[in-house]
């Protein structure tokens, strides 16, 4: 538990078994899982930036290697000399990275670079243009090469590899023709531009100008690629052209733009290069495409597109330049440089391919990280046990409503006109019309999986939507987002600001909405896996409508689920499904802000809690505990091996095939239990709602809503009335 082992967790933990029965080995196990946050490994591997770890390690190895082989590799002057070249080289790598991220490849950068170089020199040395005009011409020339690539690859849909290979050759030929006629005059000519002369050797506060340009581009490029619409478009197109097209992105224009950008950046680089060296050599830019590609791939940008960043371009550029310069400084023989570079490129491609292929496998093996949990043996629920949980057949002949019309009514609720609302797996909220609930309609479409529901003072239906957050459906059916994020925990590795699995909510008298998020480590479709971890991955969150703010109030809860405002409005009762406990969180009175345990060691896994008409509460037990699962909770290593070695459908899960409804009072006394022992109608119950003398039963895996007549219940009592009073 990195942090937030709040009062919720401590009080939420079940009572430990008597110490005598826990051996030393198990105590050590308990401490080991308490102290070492295993789940961090999986969360780090799940991070986007973990792709950078390999290239970064590579960079460090290369720097360490050459740093130890070459005496003053890291001396200041030596670094400045390399940095100037790095700036120019890096600009081209940025362009290549953008093309790669967009799903393409640009081999023509070498020729485009040579073209830019000679155009710049012709402008300065022959035409005598001022530096800015020469800059414009250079960008235009290299940009035109990019545009040609872009039109061919983006609009005419030619293969990027072959197309840019052809432009590489064509543009190189153009450069050769230009060189034949202009090279000697250029090398004899002289610039009369002071800016040009300055550019060639410029430093700003000791830092080479080209390096500054590059770093600015890296930062700007990072913001564009990761934070803006055009950048996301490039990412999306590279990730999957079809999906991007279906999402309404102009794939052709985006692809074309990446090549134009690469061309412009190549032009910029060529301009700086021309100013530095004034060289018209025909070897200018030859082989550049290889080293640029090596840099981009070595940095960790994927050849397949959709994965890449400026940080990777940065690391790759430094690595490749360190290698090329290092090889030269070691005085190795001809061909050694390209050879070493080629080997590194090969290695980078292997790592890229293998990593992409295996990353999710490794992740799926290590992401699940069970923790230690010890639950005392529960009270028996056997029919003849004599406990309040004893099995019976009270729910055997419940009335079935909406059979096959709803899929997954996790929660059920009624409005002031007695209409019944439930969610469904398809992202709809269904309304069954009073009085007989045979007619039904889709009340609103939300999109995620609607879970817990509550009406507020103004008859708005508030819904926790799995995968989306907290939503509000107004009586006129308009759907509004209430909140989908909360404050981030300081030390969490997973970004826990987004709500992954908002589960159930209730509303305080002052209008604040308290809701549970079952887990921050799993999504709506994988929530049962959270049971395997038995770690406090969930939290309780409060949305304050007055300030529009969302804050996490309790962390480290073990799958917090149902939440219900007590009848006196002073506290909330909430259930922790995997901890098999009910706790109370005080919002008013002397104990405000504290949590206390109400029921520990339930025989089943609690789900929703709702008010009953007689001042008590209904509690759904979604499944019953079993001794095997209880034992496995004390053996985290066993569960980890199971998760790694056995197929997911063979895992040992808590039993959620049979459950019941129990009635509890404010003091935690269990008063009654309602069972469907044969499991014909309602084997699994996730929620129940009392309304006008009946109890309506929902289940997240059911295709129906059950209706049970409660003997002796107040036939006029309604939930909404109990919260907000009868309407005037």
């Amino acid at each position: 538990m990195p942090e937030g082992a709040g009062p919720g967790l401590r009080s939420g933990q079940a009572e430990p078994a008597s110490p005598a029965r826990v051996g030393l080995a198990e105590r050590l196990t308990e401490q080991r899982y308490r102290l070492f946050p295993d789940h961090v490994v999986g969360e780090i591997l799940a991070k986007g930036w973990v792709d950078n770890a390999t290239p970064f390690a590579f960079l460090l190895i290369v720097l360490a290697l050459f740093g130890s082989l070459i005496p003053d590799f890291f001396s200041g002057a030596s670094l400045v000399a390399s940095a100037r070249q790095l700036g120019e080289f890096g600009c081209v790598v940025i362009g290549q990275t953008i093309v790669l991220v967009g799903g393409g490849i640009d081999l023509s950068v070498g020729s485009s670079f040579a073209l830019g170089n000679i155009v710049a020199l012709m402008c300065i040395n022959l035409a005598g243009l001022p530096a800015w005009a020469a800059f414009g011409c250079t960008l235009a020339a290299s940009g035109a090469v990019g545009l040609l690539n872009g039109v061919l690859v983006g609009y005419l849909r030619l293969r990027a590899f072959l197309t840019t290979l052809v432009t590489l050759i064509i543009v190189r030929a153009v450069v050769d023709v230009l060189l034949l006629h202009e090279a000697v005059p250029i090398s004899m000519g002289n610039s009369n531009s002071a800016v040009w002369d300055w550019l060639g050797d410029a430093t700003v506060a000791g830092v080479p100008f080209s390096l500054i340009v590059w770093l600015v581009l890296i930062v700007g490029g990072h913001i564009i690629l990761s934070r803006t619409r055009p950048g996301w478009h490039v990412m999306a197109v590279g990730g999957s052209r079809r999906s991007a097209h279906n999402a309404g992105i102009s794939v052709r224009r985006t692809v074309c733009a990446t090549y134009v950008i690469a061309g412009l950046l190549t032009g910029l680089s060529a301009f700086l290069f021309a100013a530095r060296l004034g060289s018209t050599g025909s070897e200018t830019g030859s082989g550049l495409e290889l080293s640029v590609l090596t840099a981009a791939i070595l940095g960790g940008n994927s050849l397949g597109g959709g994965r890449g960043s400026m940080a990777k371009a940065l690391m790759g550029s430094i690595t490749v330049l360190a290698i090329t310069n290092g090889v030269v400084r070691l005085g190795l023989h001809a061909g050694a440089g390209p050879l070493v570079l080629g080997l590194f490129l090969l290695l980078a491609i292997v790592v890229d391919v293998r990593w992409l292929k295996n990353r999710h496998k490794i992740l799926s093996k290590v992401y699940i990280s069970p923790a230690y949990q010890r639950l005392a043996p529960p009270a028996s629920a056997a029919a003849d046990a004599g406990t309040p949980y004893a099995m019976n057949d009270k729910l055997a002949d419940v009335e079935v409503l909406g059979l096959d019309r709803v899929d997954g009514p996790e929660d059920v609720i009624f409005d002031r006109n007695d209409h019944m609302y439930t969610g469904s797996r398809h992202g709809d909220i269904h309304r069954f019309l009073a009085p007989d609930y045979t007619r039904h309609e889709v009340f609103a479409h939300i999109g995620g999986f609607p879970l817990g529901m509550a009406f507020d003072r103004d008859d708005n239906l508030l819904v926790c939507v799995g995968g989306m957050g907290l939503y509000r459906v107004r009586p006129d059916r308009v759907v509004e987002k209430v909140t989908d994020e909360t404050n981030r925990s300081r030390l969490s590795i997973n970004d826990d600001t987004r709500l992954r699995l908002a589960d159930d909510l209730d509303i305080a008298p002052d209008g604040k909405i308290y809701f549970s998020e079952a887990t921050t480590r799993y999504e709506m479709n994988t929530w049962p896996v959270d049971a395997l971890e038995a770690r406090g991955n969930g939290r309780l969150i409060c949305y304050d409508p007055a300030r529009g703010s969302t804050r996490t109030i309790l962390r480290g809860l073990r799958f917090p689920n149902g939440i219900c405002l007590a009848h006196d409005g002073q506290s909330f009762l909430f259930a922790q499904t995997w901890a098999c406990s009910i706790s109370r969180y005080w919002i008013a009175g002397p104990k405000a802000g504290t949590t206390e345990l109400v029921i520990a060691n339930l025989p089943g896994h609690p789900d929703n809690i709702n008010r009953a008409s007689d001042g008590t509460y209904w509690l759904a037990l979604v499944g019953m505990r079993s001794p095997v699962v209880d034992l496995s909770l004390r053996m985290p290593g066993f569960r980890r091996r199971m998760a790694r070695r056995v197929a997911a459908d063979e895992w040992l899960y808590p039993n959620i095939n049979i459950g019941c409804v129990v009635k509890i009072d404010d003091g935690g006394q269990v008063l009654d239990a309602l069972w469907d022992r044969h499991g014909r109608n309602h084997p699994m119950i996730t929620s129940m709602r009392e309304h006008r003398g009946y109890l309506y039963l929902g289940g997240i895996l059911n295709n129906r809503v059950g209706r049970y007549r409660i003997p002796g219940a107040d036939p006029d009592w309604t939930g909404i009335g109990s919260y907000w009073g009868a309407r005037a």
Partner: protein
Amino acid sequence: MRLRHFLTALAAFGLTLAAASAQTADQYKGKTVAFVPVALGYDLEDGWSAILKHQADKLGYTYEVRNPNLNSDVGAQAISQLITEKPTVLVIQNPDVQVYSRLIKKAEKAGIHVIQINMKSVAPSDYFVGADYVQLGQQAADMMVQKCGAGSGKSGKIAIVQGVLTAAASVLQMQGIDAVLSKHPDIKVVSNQAADWDSSKARAIMQTVVQQNPDLCGVVGFWDSMDVGTGSAIREAGKAAQVFLVTSGGGSDTACTNIDNGTFGAELSYDVPRQGSDMNKDILAAMTAGPAPDADKVTQITPLKVLSKETIGTTGCWTLKQLQAAAG
């Protein structure tokens, strides 16, 4: 006969050694000579490097070589790097007249003695050792006039295969050629292209030229290692007897072999062992000259030798092995 050639080379070493032994050997300790060629792996550069290394080993100073492998950007980077490392002497072979000029000035300003070998930059430095390429061009053109010009009964058509266009060797040689040919309208240059010191490029160029001009009479190639390609294209076309190829280079055994087998008609040779010992002398001078480079520029022009079937018997060629053996 080759032995005599070697004896002269050894005598040159001996001279430098004698000059050196007058000083205490310690005076060279801790000093460094760095060499940035255009590329290693060719007779020219490897020959120079062997000779430079030999003296360094004898006198106890450090010798290192940085190989840009035909990439002037890498070379510029290597020189920038060396400027920060401050060797005593920097030996540079310029890939073109412009590219290192700023760096040469910078190096000299930093107190490093710069020797430019064979190919000059527009920026002059303390020392230059090398051939007079203008004269070399004139001699080559004279040969063309003699073999193909009026009175020879040939077509008068010649081709020129340059190296890197902006390299001093190309620029200056063209000046020499132009000076001669301007007086000889009977010689017609049918092709003047750059093969960038690359023999496969030269071969590709010459294959086309020979097809387009079946009556080609002569070719001026700018470097023997490259013109191995030029010559093979001519021989492939079956024109070895008709086309006279004159090239230039360091006069290693490559030259002799190719003259022997008729690939080259003649080679204008600047003597690599001699250039090496000239550089070694300059290095000693620079090392004893004190901290600041001399204001005087020292230029040592390597005399040209004409290698042809008639002369190789007497002058001979050198091999790298012999140079290394003599040095080692």
